[in-house]
């Protein structure tokens, strides 16, 4: 059952790291409802937040793959919304 999963990632502020991160989403062809990049509280570290519309297993697999990216400091699945709920 597809639902909206919000994932927050702390990663090095480097284009290549961002490119690798987006590549994980591209390769698995998951629908992205929202994607935002902004500075975090730590210098040199960015916060990437995105919302995926997919089943929970795929969302979990995406999170696991993010852990493998060199330059990713932390990954959290912060929220899951049922697809029938208005966000």
């Amino acid at each position: 059952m597809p639902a909206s999963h919000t994932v927050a990632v702390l990663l090095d502020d480097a284009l290549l790291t961002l490119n690798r991160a987006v590549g994980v989403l591209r390769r698995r062809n998951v629908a992205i409802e929202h994607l935002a990049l902004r500075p975090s509280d730590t210098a040199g570290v960015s916060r990437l937040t995105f919302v995926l519309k997919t089943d929970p297993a795929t969302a979990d697999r995406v999170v696991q793959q993010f852990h493998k990216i060199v330059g990713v400091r932390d990954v959290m699945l912060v929220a899951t919304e049922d697809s029938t709920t208005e966000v």
Partner: protein
Amino acid sequence: MTEMLTGAQILCRTLVEGGVDVIFGYPGGAIMPFYHALGDHPRLRHILVRHEQAAAHAADGYARASGRVGVCVATSGPGATNLVTGLATAHMDSSPVVAITGQVPRAMIGRDAFQETDIIGMTLPITKQNYLVQDVAELAAVVREALAIAQEGRPGPVLIDVPKDVQNQKTAFLGLEPRGSGLDTRAPSPNPQDPDGVREAARLIAAAERPLLMVGHGVILGNAYTEVRALAEKTGIPVITTLLGISAFPDGHPLFLGMPGMHGEVRVNRAIQHADLIVGIGLRFDDRVTGNTAGFAPRARIVHIDLDRAEIGKNVPVAVGIVGDARDVTRRLAAVVQPRTCVPWLEEIREFTRPRAAAFRGDLAPETILASLYQATEGRCTIVTDVGQHQMWVAKLYPYREPNSHITSGGLGTMGFAVPAAMGVHLARPHETVWAISGDGGFQMNMAEIGTMVQEQLPVKMAIFNNGYLGMVRQWQQFFHGKRYSCTPIWSPDYVKLAEAYGIPGWRVKDAAELPDAVAQANDHAGPALVEFVIEQEANVYPMIPPGGSLSEPIETAPAAGD
């Protein structure tokens, strides 16, 4: 001590300092400063390949055989793109390879300069990490980090792209400095090893009636042979080795069952389908192992031990997932598990055994060829295989007893891998005999590397299983495409004359009577040598699980004529 060095000199110095002793490469415009500096570093032996793909495979072969990083070097543009297949192969099979590519000068990047290509963009999904070095001051740290990342955790390839002007730039170079003083860009370390997971696994082992151990490449990478054997012997659990796990457990051991999956023996796949517990160590439950996952091991709970947390639950649901090093986790599991035996289960599996299907007419069957090879080498050699029918025959029929003596391209299934990879294996193990076994298709992909073997004096023994077809594709055409052999018949040159043209000995073997002499002479020859086995044209690999099929339904004979 601080010295002023060029980027090219720093590349050489940091490689030497990182313990690298051999590099595989091919010079070209954008990497020329590096090749200039190489002349001052005799500790870096350079192997000049005939195609950059071979450099990547050779570095991969070196890495797999030595457990250390394999290094390849290429120029920008076509040099770099030719590495791609080799890097993807190393990525799929978790092999620590570092590739260094020249790049056009920084000012030219993005302007479609001569021999410019975005190799960073191209290799993003097939490398563990890659770098475009924009500043020579970063170069030493990048090389040190790349060598470390390639080996750390689950190994994999790393690429360093160095613009030509950065290779020429000078900077102050500090000798060996401890790594890790700067930015920590490593992947987050896996969960602290969960002792409860180990205890739960031990409890499941104690309660199981039909347990199996499935071991993969992680056992070889993690040097966990002794621990796996101890766990098997303490519990009496039979052991299955995946294609890349072959030689992780000795063939001939009473608990050894064989290889599972698409071409696994019937008894192995039936054991999986009847098992109530599977303990998987260092494998990823690849689709060639599981068949259709919906029907895989329907009665079994799965304990999955792997260094890569992303593998746990990726392909099959697991009851217990333990993230950790194969050696450490297996040792702890073996320590807490209750001693037991599995006698009735072993009896049951024995009854699953079927006589091997008579796949061959004539007497030059793979069994005979491989028996002859085993005899000539007394079982002491490393075999590097290519991809296709011969790969499955070798995997199933050769009795591997020495750890890590079987090297093949598993995940990517790269035809053309064996010959160049075997050159790397030889350099990692100069005192061992190395046989590269290929089909006539894969051999022709990279046979130009015979020139490398002759020039660099690499005494690799090459065997060709010649059936005049791209045999595995032909087999699929026979089974699933109404026997329409579309574009699979393949012409070969006269391999004996080819060998002669390169100045190496060659033999053509057409029947079993000629086998022992030819194999023994090739094996004992001091330099590279080639043996062609002219085998039956339309022989098949049995049994076979059809793609997407369940392990319970193997094909054991060819479809009737006219199908």
